[in-house]
């Protein structure tokens, strides 16, 4: 996954310093600082390539990146910018080690996955002491002053049972076609209901979702943080599962970042197609249209493109087709739906102030549509958008399109009038 020094050097040569990345970089748009835009970061990486000493300014510039791929999508030279930045972060961890907080979290990911689930369950038990439910959103805000966390910071409500627990009790109906479902950590441990919604929709379409418990984290977060050894281990573990299930032709995920990571795995079984759930539903559009019949969402809805779906995987039409299907003319585009929400893996936590500024533009754009729901196919974006709605006291909720679809399918079809 990580480029070799030679590949990086060749890639760096492709940049013609045109500056087009400035048009889209969320960090540059906020700061106006040229050391924080792709052109500047590439210049800095080139400047000290191979060096054993990493100057403070360099570290900061390499850190100030959401890995949102906006620059990449806009670069006429096709420079693989995020891969270069991730490789620079590997160089950084090799020389300086991992930041201690990230180190702790990633150790959980790398080692027996059970520890995450136990960690989450313990958290679920204790979180009510410090955190309280939000009236309208799924998520929690603090009860008491906590260091580094303001009263608008939203954390996910940790569920008592994770997706694996919930699935243990379920049994698939007979005669269904098997399909792999990669839930990803957020769906598995934080929003298991979303996983159930996705499985329900698959079932309605005649598919039995297989969720091997051996699937691990996709490795996107650790890759972005420069923790190469953890990412490589996670990838190997997931590849093993994929090869063991090589008879199954398709894999779906409802997480934009997982999809982006999985599609980039080298050495995955050639005959297994990896699809975002919106791509899969689009393949089965006729059947889904039949299933839905006259059921339609009555609320105004808008859509935020997850960066790792639109720019990472080039998927932007299918989610819109889906929203048109479930909401018809109640689906309204916001201005610049493609702009990043500012979450960016751990960026929202480590650079809260800047992340909030980026988020504010997004919430303003969502507010302007008058929508009651902001849909987005990524658990990370959903959490960030929810925080945006809390901060701006906006009147909408962030939801995954699959949740909306499942809810509609649960409703009885309206009578002909």
């Amino acid at each position, binding site marked *: 996954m990580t480029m070799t020094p030679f590949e990086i050097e060749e890639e760096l040569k492709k940049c013609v310093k045109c500056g087009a990345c400035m048009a889209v970089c969320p960090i540059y748009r906020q700061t106006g*600082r040229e050391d924080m835009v792709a052109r500047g970061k590439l*210049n800095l990486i080139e400047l*000290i390539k191979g060096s054993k000493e990493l100057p403070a300014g*360099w570290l900061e510039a390499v850190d100030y990146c959401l890995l949102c791929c906006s620059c990449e999508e806009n670069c006429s030279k096709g420079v693989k910018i995020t891969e270069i930045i991730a490789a620079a972060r590997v160089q950084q961890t090799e020389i300086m080690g991992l930041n201690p907080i990230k180190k702790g979290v990633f150790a959980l990911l790398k080692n027996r996955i059970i520890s995450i689930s136990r960690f989450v369950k313990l958290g679920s038990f204790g979180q009510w002491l410090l955190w309280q439910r939000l009236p309208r959103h799924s998520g929690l805000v603090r009860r008491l002053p906590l260091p580094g966390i303001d009263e608008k910071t939203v954390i996910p409500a940790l569920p008592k049972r994770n997706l694996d627990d919930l699935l243990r009790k379920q049994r698939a109906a007979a005669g269904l076609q098997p399909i792999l479902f990669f839930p990803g950590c957020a769906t598995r441990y934080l929003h298991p209901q979303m996983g159930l919604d996705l499985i329900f929709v698959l079932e309605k379409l005649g598919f039995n979702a297989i969720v091997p418990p051996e699937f691990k984290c996709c490795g996107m977060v650790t890759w972005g943080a420069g923790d190469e050894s953890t990412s490589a281990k996670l990838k190997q573990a997931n590849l093993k599962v994929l090869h063991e299930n090589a008879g199954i032709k398709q894999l779906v995920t409802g997480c934009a970042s997982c999809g982006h990571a999985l599609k980039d795995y080298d050495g995955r079984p050639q005959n297994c197609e990896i699809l975002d759930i919106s791509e899969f539903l689009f393949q089965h559009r006729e059947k889904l249209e039949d299933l839905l019949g006259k059921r339609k969402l009555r609320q105004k809805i808008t859509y935020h493109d997850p960066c790792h779906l639109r720019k990472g995987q080039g998927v932007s039409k299918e989610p819109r087709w889906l929203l048109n299907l479930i909401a018809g003319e109640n689906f309204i585009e916001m201005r610049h739906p493609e702009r990043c929400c500012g979450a960016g893996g751990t960026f929202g936590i480590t650079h809260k102030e800047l992340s909030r500024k980026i988020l504010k533009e997004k919430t303003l754009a969502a507010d302007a549509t008058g929508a009651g729901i902001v849909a987005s196919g990524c658990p990370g974006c959903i959490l960030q958008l929810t925080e945006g709605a809390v901060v701006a006291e906006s009147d909408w909720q962030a939801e995954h399109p699959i949740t909306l679809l499942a809810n509609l399918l649960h409703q009885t079809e309206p009578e002909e009038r």
Partner: protein
Amino acid sequence: MDKLIDPLARQLTARLKDAGFRSEQIVADKVLRTCYGYDATRQSSDPLLALLPENELQVQTILRLATEKNLKIFPRGAGSGMSGGAIPSADGIILSLTRMRRILEIDEDNMIATVEPGVVTGDLQEEVGKFGLFYPPDPASLAFSTIGGNVTENAGGPRAVKYGVTGNFVMGLEAYLINGEKITCGNKCIKSVSGYDLTSLLVGSEGTLAVITKILLKLLPAPETAKTSLLAFSSMTAAAHAVNAMFKYQINPSTIEFLDHHSINAVRSELPFALPEAADTVLLVEIDGPEAQVKNQSKKLNELFKNDALLLIDAKDESEREQLWLARRKLSPAIANIAPHKINEDIAVPLAAIPEVISNLEELSREINLPIVCFGHAGDGNIHVNVMLDKNDPDQAERGRKGIDKIFAITLEAGGTLSGEHGIGNTKSAYFDKEWDPVTIATMRAVKKAFDPDNRLNPGKIFPL
């Protein structure tokens, strides 16, 4: 720590912090300042430090401090310039205006926008669009270049045929002289002839006369609709006659772009429609305005060229329009496949001289044995000339250099100019005296001296050092 910051830069930093600058407005770190040393020409030369003022008083503070210390100032927008205008020297301060990016007013009654120089052109267009208004200048870099940079380079784009270039929209300016004193030029009046027109003087001044801090821009009502057509002709001469005929028959396109046959061959295989083998020149024509008028003019266009054009396609909707424009958009990446490097110049010539200049460039291409690809704005005579070569091959590099001398000679011979939109900067200053006579240049230098007696504001640009 001292290794990372120059002692002088450290001193200036302390003074500026005392004056209220925040850390993120000062880039003094020796590593980070390298990000302010280049522009789209890929030259590079690191400044002493880069400063990012947030208002005009901070600009003034910087200019006064620089005057006290006898330092040079290099104004900078987005650093997307194609002639090296924003390239600093080691004893100079980069004055980056990207944090002065407020749209101060959109005056709907007078149809004028007042903006700070760091506003990105595309952002302004989007904002005025919300009021049904239109800011036409459309350099290809509009999504990232700044209005300040557009004004000082007098940037233009395809729409220049009908609407003109940036300068045609600048009603007035506020600017600071190198010593920190402020001047005001122009106003909101359409007719305004009181005194010298300093606004026009600062337009296209390439950051050498004053630092612009506020800009008044004329706006127009947004056109109701636009229609795009693609026409193919058997020769450049036939295409040039066609452009002339359009004007004569009162078809008033907003855009007339051309692609020569090298360009056509480079993109042909990537187009969603078939271009006839015999096509030598392609014109992309866009007509905008009220619905009825556009329809009418488009009909005229079809009647006029149904026999002469080898191919005439009208875009029926947005997606077809996008397909026609693909020919132009695919061009830059496509010609990159011809050779690893290109030297590109943006000469401009009188309309009638286009066919002759193109044919002379063909001959030059044979002479230096390097491909020369031409495309650009047929409606205003601005031609992008690209000499394709491998710069790592010393022989090719030498032939390329000779080629550039000849290109300028051909251009000036035809009554043209060295630059239609990118400016002289430091990349073309060596040729400046080929275009202008000594007395004219001396007069220009006298103007420079009146504004900047010590040559501390963007030295080395336009005039050779």
